[in-house]
């Protein structure tokens, strides 16, 4: 797994208090990992912080799964 994926996973595990093995490629933050809409806003803020990028609101809405997040961040950084 790439360095970016590891760092994203660490953030998701910490913020949502979920087991690491639940954070799979297609795991949806809301449907599978117990997040609510405010949690996803905070997650996006944490990604921005960690990777020093800006994720615009319309892009943030497309980040629904762990895989989405890794893909977006890889392209953005």
């Amino acid at each position, binding site marked *: 797994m790439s360095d970016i994926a590891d760092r994203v996973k660490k953030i998701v595990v910490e913020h*949502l*208090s979920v087991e690491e093995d639940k954070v799979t490629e297609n795991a949806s933050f809301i449907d599978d990992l117990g997040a609510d809409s*405010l949690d996803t806003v905070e997650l996006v*803020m944490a990604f921005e912080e960690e990777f020093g990028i800006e994720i615009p609101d319309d892009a943030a809405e497309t980040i629904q799964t762990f895989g989405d997040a890794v893909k977006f961040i890889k392209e953005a950084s």
Partner: protein
Amino acid sequence: MRRVVVTGLGLVTPLACGVEESWSRLLAGKSGAGTITKFDTTGFATTYACEVPRGDGTDGTFNPDDWMEPKEQRKVDEFILYGMAAAQQAVEDAGWMPEAHEDRIRTGVMIGSGIGGLNSIAETSITLNERGPRRVSPFFVPGALINLVSGQVSIRYGFKGPNHAVVTACSTGAHAIGDAARLIMLDDADVMIAGGAESPIGAIGVAGFNACKALSTKRGHEPEKASRPWDADSDGFVMGEGAGIVVLEEYEHAKARGARIYAEILGYGLSGDAHHITAPPPDHEGAERAMRAALKRAGLEPSAVDYVNAHGTSTMADTIELGAVERLMGDHAENLLMSSTKSATGHLLGAAGAIEAIFAILALRDQVAPPTINLDTPAAETRINLCANTKVEGEINVVQSNSFGFGGTNACLIMGKV
């Protein structure tokens, strides 16, 4: 009018986390004061406060993880955390965690706070200023709003009745219990979770209360002696934090389910001073009217009151309150027990009235008035027994708790045995 009784108690105080843990330390004359650990007090006039003792949850320490998941703790200000802990204790003590919809819609919550998420607001304002609006947490607003203790408690237990929060500065806790009792009396609910929560200890809170010359400043070398109601050497209140929450229940409802009944809410009185934003008038007739209103509602003469838990903050207002109580009590003053438990806990602002109502209830249960510690040189002569430095045992059938707040707001609760 329907009768209202108290069937559950919960406390997080600077003495301890837990009702019995706080009460036993209070009776033993312990102080919750110490040097402030929550922030660097360099440059502050006040360097001490009554902080809730943190630890692993044993021996009366407060362990946040016992009361809220770490993930949830990050999303709320500390006053909500304290409120959740005290609410859980009270609900479990009452044994009232109904599953049925009909029960849940008849159970409400009214937990207030004087200032709410003050530290969250201060910290977020720094974040906003230094790092811009995109770094403000989505949990900032719901983590700082005063009514979010009531909201969080209702969500945890599924209580779908009236959901409300009182904000009347230092009389918040008493008003919350009184107003919640009225909702039950008026048949808007059968059970109410009521009280107050506060977490004002932080740079901004201490600086603010220092600026209005309200806090004790001169006992950095012996903080445990700083809160000294009615003592000639008092120099201001000592800030405290925590929460006090009770379960109030309609009498027949409590009886039918075999609940343990601590006390009945007999009377509740309210008044305003219309005088000054922070100071009571020299005679504090507003306090006297609140007390008379509570007695009238209870259908009792002043002579029926055995113990008064005074507002007594360790300020110039203490002797003014004493004068108002003396006028009310007349010759009964010489039979009366009165103490200020703020001498031990400090002033919990919006939670004060609730923790003190609970202490008054425990005085009723155990037939003992808790002490006013640090009362070494009385500032005024009185016939009232102020329980100086030691608890006083006696026959206690009716108790009263006074709470007064900035803005000139007064509340008085009268409770008795069923």
